[in-house]
């Protein structure tokens, strides 16, 4: 009832489909490689571009100040060293397959995640003001805070602010419910984060924030700060 020609046509079709898929595979491979390359590049660029820029301008400033204000020059050089060490840690975290948690790495990751979730992001451009010993902790805060914004907030805007003393994550979503932190047994994110922050000597607060939604602030124990103000050479 079915003819041999029809049968042949069916097999021919199989082969055509296979060849087609093979061809698109090569193409796919190239596209994937390219996409991944630009993704990594974008991360690296976000993470290191800022640090290297600060190193460049601060070292130039230090050189100019050596005679006029050796004290300030020394401070700038000290900053350069601190920032370079932090950047080195960032390079290692980015490179190692088991991706370590760092403030800068998480910042790059949540930038992508928020974009993918269609949430407008207002993020600091860099994390080098965070003292070295708090970078991992700040990374955890960013990771958990933004994961929650994406999962629970129903927000259209998310803002992260980082200073030497604290990190705050705000959104414009539905805000904390009555049950938040009351300890649903399946909710361990914020509890775990609180323990982490407190064991580092800091504290964690949640509540309703300036943007009308949820706010999460981790305060960090104080530490020496980097030089941000302008030169005192003339004063």
């Amino acid at each position: 009832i079915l003819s041999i020609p029809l049968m042949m046509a069916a097999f021919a079709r199989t082969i055509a489909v296979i060849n087609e898929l093979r061809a698109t595979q090569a193409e796919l491979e190239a596209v994937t490689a390219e996409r991944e390359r630009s993704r990594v590049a974008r991360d690296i660029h976000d993470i290191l571009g800022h640090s290297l820029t600060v190193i460049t301008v601060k070292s130039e400033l230090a050189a100019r100040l050596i005679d006029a204000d050796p004290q300030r020059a020394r401070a700038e050089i000290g900053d350069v060293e601190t920032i370079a060490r932090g950047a080195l840690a960032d390079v290692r975290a980015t490179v190692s397959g088991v991706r370590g948690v760092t403030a800068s790495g998480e910042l790059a990751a949540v930038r992508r995640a928020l974009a993918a979730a269609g949430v407008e992001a207002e993020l600091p451009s860099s994390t080098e003001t965070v003292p070295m010993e708090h970078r991992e902790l700040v990374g955890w805060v960013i990771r958990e805070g933004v994961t929650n914004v994406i999962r629970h907030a129903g927000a259209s805007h998310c803002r992260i602010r980082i200073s030497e003393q604290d990190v705050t994550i705000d959104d414009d979503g539905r805000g904390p419910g009555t049950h938040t932190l009351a300890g649903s047994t399946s909710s361990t994110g914020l509890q775990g984060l609180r323990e982490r922050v407190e064991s580092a000597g800091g504290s964690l607060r949640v509540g309703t924030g300036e943007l009308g939604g949820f706010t999460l602030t981790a305060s960090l124990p104080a530490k020496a700060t980097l030089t941000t103000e302008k030169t005192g050479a003339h004063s």
Partner: protein
Amino acid sequence: MIRLLIADDQALVRGALTALLSLETDIEVVAEVGRGDEVVDAARASAADVALLDIEMPGIDGIAAAAELREAVPHCRVLMVTTFGRPGYLVRAMQAGASGFVVKDTPSAQLADAVRRVANGFRVVDPSLAAESLAQGDSPLTER
């Protein structure tokens, strides 16, 4: 004396650029801001002649700030600075009315020179940024 406004959200860079450019005898830094949406008010209040604008900033980005600034305070010229040239930045900045576009790590003597040239009505485009921008497929700048 050229009155300069510096807008960059990265406080460490802003502070160092301010200190470096303040060392120039003919440049005075009259305002510093860390957000794009504070540029216009600060430029007006400080009567700045030139605004050095970073691109990626909270509030509005430097390119949008440049457009607002050219509209609101036409006397103030714009020099864009950036860490890297992402596709489209250069062309969009020029369309927004910027007079110059250089990388942020430009040596300060050259940066000061760029500020002077922009203040005097010239255009300044970093050749490496122009090349990068071209490599990424932007159409070349049309000079008009």
